[in-house]
């Protein structure tokens, strides 16, 4: 059984003036320890896909299952346990890196000593142990991206969802973040990331593109049967 399964998911945004299909019949299955990266141009629906996959937004049609259970029936507990959704941090904040990681734990009722210890472990995991006392404003964009991962990892998720982890990150820091994502998957976590830069696709177990709401990529298990173009055209003509 797949850890995450998107089954024929459609998502649309509509109001008085707009009716736009952002995800169109999207299906995706991710196993434990898999690193999948979805590439797409700006505005293609990548962030929506990730929010739907993380259970933050509900699909209009289709289902999203995490560990075999429909996210629609999970309630609010999912993000705090099995799924970690990684958001960019505002670097204007006056908090230190350690506080950023600790605060959600303290808010959840974890004792100060335990929260501090877990925050230290998470910061160490992402290579930021030496930056624990630094304020967010003192961090580079790459360090801030690592910190946002630490804030998610501190909850021991099984699935990490990351929206454009290397966007705006310096060239020399970029590969370190990608290597970190790879190592998380190698440790058994499932990672679903989006990217506007194709460099983020390197080394992923699954690479996909999102265009006009349609998700495309190499088939996960072997190649699909080859269909002659002529017969495909004939089928269209007959359709």
């Amino acid at each position, binding site marked *: 059984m797949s850890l995450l399964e998107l089954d024929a998911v459609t998502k649309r945004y509509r109001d008085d003036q707009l009716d736009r299909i952002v995800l169109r019949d999207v299906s995706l299955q991710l196993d434990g320890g898999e690193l999948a990266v979805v*590439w797409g141009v700006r505005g293609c629906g990548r962030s929506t896909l990730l929010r739907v996959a993380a259970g933050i937004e509900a699909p209009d049609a289709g289902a999203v299952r995490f560990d075999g259970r429909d996210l629609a029936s999970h309630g609010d507990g999912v993000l705090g346990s099995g799924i970690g959704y990684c958001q960019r941090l505002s670097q204007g904040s006056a908090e230190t890196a350690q506080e950023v990681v600790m605060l959600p734990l303290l808010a959840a009722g974890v004792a100060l000593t335990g929260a501090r210890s877990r925050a230290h472990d998470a910061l160490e995991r992402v290579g930021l142990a030496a930056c624990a006392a630094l304020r967010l404003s003192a961090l580079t964009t790459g360090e801030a991206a690592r910190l946002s991962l630490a804030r998610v990892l501190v909850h021991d998720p099984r699935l990490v969802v990351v929206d454009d982890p290397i966007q705006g990150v310096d060239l020399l820091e970029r590969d370190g973040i990608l290597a970190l994502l790879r190592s998380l998957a190698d440790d058994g976590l499932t990672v679903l990331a989006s990217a506007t*830069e*194709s460099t983020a*696709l*390197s080394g992923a177990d699954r690479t996909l593109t999102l265009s006009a709401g349609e998700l495309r990529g190499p088939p996960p298990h072997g190649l699909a049967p080859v269909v002659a*173009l002529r017969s*495909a*055209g004939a089928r269209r003509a007959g359709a």
Partner: protein
Amino acid sequence: MIAPPRTPAFLYTTPVMPAEREVQAAPMQSQVNWALLGLVIERPSYAYELARRFERTYEGVLALSSVSHVYTALAVLRERELIEELPGTRVGRQPKPHYQATANGLADYGQWLVGQVDEDLRRQRLFVLALARFIRDPHAALEILAGYEQACLTEAQNTPVPGHDGACAASAPELAERLAAEESRLAIGAKLTWVEYVRRELNALIEAQGARA
């Protein structure tokens, strides 16, 4: 004012053409010969060692038909005065003459490298022209495009993250690996963006054809 294109540094030093260098021969087409010249430029060496280095360096990219292929290639490079024997290395009972690059060899190699850009552009242009033949059947073009996109994604997937920590490359193979990976990663990005553009053009075409029908 538009700045003139920059000339690579190695092209500033025009080698002196020796009088005996015959009338410009036809361009050397063999990729193996050029690749071998690159190895000699990297480090003067003898034939057998060059064959071993060739296999290690160009594994999966270029192949020698046999070790004797190196001897043939070296003969061509010498004939074209792109390499020369290193004095004092043809000694002993089993002489191993080492070869080093000449100034001409260095200059020609640089020009060949720059010429690869034109070759890449020509191949890409050919693909685009071939794809454009499907103007009457944009659906078929979209299917081909999907295959092209999948090939790009597979290549991206197979390109490892270099995984260095900011330190400079410790060896020529490591440097080559890093440069090749980065070139591949960036090129894939350009191709995927291009696929997105073509897809929109083809969909617009399908819409226009539908409206006319």
